[in-house]
């Protein structure tokens, strides 16, 4: 660490050498150049949590605006501000919170769970994170771009420059005619950048999972979380190109006057809806399947039983992945596709509930007859099973076309997708944080604070989103910034707003718990939950090389079988002392000395840094002074990629075989 001088004062090759030497260091530079999947996972986790707080603040602003009946003038936010805030709330929670937080778990857990030392392409992994960060910052910079961005006067005067066309960006509302200013340009290009980040991650995890499993770890010995990562990654690599094309079309329409969604030229805005939802429905499974994977690990551990019907859980996950491609038009029943199309998509939507239901029953079967250990992660996992069931069932009511005609564009829909995304994805992700967090913090979360967090969040969640279901059935439309007195919506809206603040309070408890436990928490040890999978066989936090010796895998839940044998009646009995592998035993001073890990590199950072410059250049391509930013961005991108291709990947490779 002491050898790291300021990188700016070195020649380029010196800086490269120093960067490689920084593998064990902890300064800022070591984080910028890291290619270690665990550090990248932590970066993903922390960044997405900060975006979660921002997205949550936006949600509170929305709820303040709707708490009581108001007029457009008396409401807290102006209609224009409201549009921008609710757009950014959706964009943030989907693209900057749930996806990257799932990605954090892919990064942290997948190599550990399959017994690998890193992902297949460590530098591409770093590239993926930096693109996510810069894409998110690019999107959020739009807030300050309405007036003079250097003084921020537009923002201070309440004239936000953010996107205002909803996270779904429906044409023609997203076109220049209805959304002047640059907000939706930021949306189109920002999501494009985030899409590239997701694609890079998707490719990386498929190759890692298919190619880098420890000896003996056949596909059907993989933990279910790894399976769900695989399915999600396949969904990502096939869904992202579709939205990429749609976003290009939107960008060309807005920036260069193309006619994709221009009705006057014969185009149809429905093209956008088809493309968006062809991406969008696989996307909702991209959001939920990682959480399903997490609870499939948590429930068996805390029920002290193997997962009930492992192959069913795996195959139903795969089935959901396939079927998610055939249901997109259920977002478009009221656009006039016709009775045949509506019926076909209605049927496919009912069918996709079957594999999802299979999973729910398998989780209940896992808990049934187990000796439940009700720790915080387990509570969150149970919370997911219960709340997602409510959300899933409201989804089934949407699949019925005539019923959906009534619910379309009401708060019932808002309630439904928050039930599955908050009650499903977020509860699952919090289960993961409490379950696997100690592996990387080295300390356990405080149990009482954790459970307090769970119960306040559960109550807050239900107080927020169940009233919305009633409001929807009472006919309250979505996406309105205010509503008049006299519809009888005031009471339930006030409840929902109170619930939102309770959720915010529960998040404060979590933040306190995190910092408290990081310093004062009980030392976790390698295997605090007496768990089942490989990641618990190594120290907490894991060394850079993960496994001093690559494990040999013999069964599903291999780590459990190394610890426990079965007595004649099938009960687990601990393997006699001495025979069991002590988790800490393989961790000593000299262990791992000869292992060559990939060298740190700042090339992914440089390459990723080019993208927002390209983005600004495109958004302001009319301005001759800002147009050159395109060249700056392209230069950074090409420099980064060339440097990346030319530098050796490991110390080992820097000798004679410097290819």
């Amino acid at each position: 660490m002491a050898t790291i001088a300021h990188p700016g004062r070195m020649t380029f090759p010196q800086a490269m050498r120093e960067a490689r030497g920084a593998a064990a260091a902890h300064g800022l530079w070591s984080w910028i150049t890291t290619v270690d999947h665990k550090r990248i996972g932590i970066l993903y986790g922390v960044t997405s949590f900060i975006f979660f707080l921002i997205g949550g603040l936006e949600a509170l602003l929305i709820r303040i605006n709707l708490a009581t009946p108001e007029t457009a003038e008396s409401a807290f936010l102006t209609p224009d501000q409201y549009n921008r805030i609710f757009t950014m709330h959706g964009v943030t929670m989907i693209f900057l919170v749930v996806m990257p937080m799932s990605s954090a778990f892919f990064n942290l857990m997948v190599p550990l769970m399959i017994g690998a030392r890193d992902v297949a392409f460590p530098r591409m992994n770093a590239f993926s994170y930096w693109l996510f960060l810069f894409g998110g910052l690019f999107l959020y910079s739009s807030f300050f771009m309405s007036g003079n961005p250097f003084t921020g006067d537009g923002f201070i005067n309440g004239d936000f420059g953010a996107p205002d066309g909803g996270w779904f960006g429906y044409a023609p509302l997203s076109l220049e005619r209805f959304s002047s200013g640059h907000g939706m340009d930021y949306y189109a290009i920002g999501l494009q950048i985030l899409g590239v980040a997701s694609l890079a991650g998707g490719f990386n995890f498929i190759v890692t999972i298919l190619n880098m499993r420890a000896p003996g770890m056949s596909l059907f010995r993989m933990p279910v979380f790894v399976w769900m990562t695989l399915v999600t990654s396949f969904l990502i690599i096939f869904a992202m190109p579709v939205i990429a094309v749609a976003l290009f079309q939107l960008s060309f329409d807005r920036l260069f006057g193309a006619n994709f969604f221009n009705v006057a030229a014969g185009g149809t805005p429905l093209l956008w809806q088809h493309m968006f939802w062809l991406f969008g429905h696989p996307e909702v499974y991209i959001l939920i399947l990682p959480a399903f994977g997490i609870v499939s690990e948590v429930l068996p551990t805390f029920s002290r039983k193997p997962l009930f019907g492992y192959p069913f859980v795996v195959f139903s996950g795969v089935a959901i992945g396939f079927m998610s491609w055939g249901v997109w038009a259920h977002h478009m029943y009221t656009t006039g596709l016709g009775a045949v199309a509506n019926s076909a998509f209605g049927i496919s939507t009912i069918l996709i509930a079957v594999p999802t239901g299979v999973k729910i029953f398998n989780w209940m079967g896992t808990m049934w007859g187990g000796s439940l250990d009700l720790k915080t992660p387990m509570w969150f996992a149970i919370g997911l099973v219960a709340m997602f069931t409510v959300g899933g069932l409201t989804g089934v009511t949407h699949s019925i076309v005539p019923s959906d005609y009534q619910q379309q564009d009401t708060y019932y829909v808002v309630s439904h997708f928050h039930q599955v995304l908050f009650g499903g994805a977020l509860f699952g992700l919090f289960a993961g944080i409490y379950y696997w967090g100690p592996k990387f913090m080295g300390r356990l979360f405080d149990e009482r604070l954790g459970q307090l967090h769970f119960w306040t969040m559960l109550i807050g969640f239900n107080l927020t989103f169940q009233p919305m279901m009633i409001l929807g059935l009472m006919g309250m439309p979505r996406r309105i910034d205010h509503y008049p007195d006299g519809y009888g919506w005031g009471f339930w809206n006030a409840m929902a707003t109170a619930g939102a603040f309770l959720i915010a309070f529960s998040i404060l408890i979590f933040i306190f718990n995190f910092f408290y436990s990081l310093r004062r928490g009980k030392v976790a040890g390698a295997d605090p939950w007496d768990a089942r999978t490989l990641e618990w066989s190594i120290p907490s936090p894991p060394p850079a090389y993960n496994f001093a010796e690559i494990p040999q895998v013999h069964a599903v839940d291999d780590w459990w079988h190394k610890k426990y044998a079965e007595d004649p009646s099938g009960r687990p009995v601990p393997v006699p002392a001495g025979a069991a592998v002590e988790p800490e035993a393989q961790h000593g001073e000299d262990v791992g000395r000869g292992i060559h890990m990939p060298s740190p590199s700042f090339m992914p950072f440089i390459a990723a840094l080019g993208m927002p410059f390209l983005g600004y250049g495109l958004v302001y391509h009319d301005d001759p002074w800002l147009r050159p930013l395109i060249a700056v961005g392209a230069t950074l991108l090409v420099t980064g990629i060339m440097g990346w291709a030319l530098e050796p990947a490991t110390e080992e490779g820097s000798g004679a075989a410097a290819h």
Partner: protein
Amino acid sequence: MAQVAHAESSAAGHLETNTGLDNRKLLMWLFLGSECLFFGSLISAYLLYRDRSVVGPYPADLYDIPFTSVSSFILLMSSLSMVLALAAIQRGNVRNMRIWLLCTALLGTLFIGGQAFEFTEFYREGLHLDTNLFGTTFYVLTGFHGAHVTVGVLILLSIVAASFKGRVNSEEDALTVELAGLYWHFVDIVWIVIFTLVYLVEPT
């Protein structure tokens, strides 16, 4: 470049992969699968908007099928020289690999030149990006394809340059050429689809 990935996988402790496919090769196949959806979406948009332009010029006013057929033929021939380049490096013949790679890059550049000429002609005859749906979908679809060919040419030239710097220069590095070839053939196949659906299917 081949050894870069080699080193990367050995660092991770797996010289042998579970599938037997090199990490990079699997990555390339996945990337091409993803690209199928990308071009699939662009082509769908084109087909959806066929014959729906409300003002001209229309495809039949502009297409010069013999010209585009020649440039398509040139692109197809580049796939042949790409195969020959791979065959050369697999036998360890670096000189022939360079010749065939340069030949492939040249044919690709000719194709791009033809496209640039075609775009210029169409533009002069009044078809702009914002003229009508045909202009919008045609330029965006063929433009993205052209960008892919351009990237391909740059990759081929980088490999030739690398071969002079002591990188890609033995049969062990054949994988690098093979991956570039996979990409190149894919871009060719996409052009066959585009040429058939966009140019040949009874333009109105």
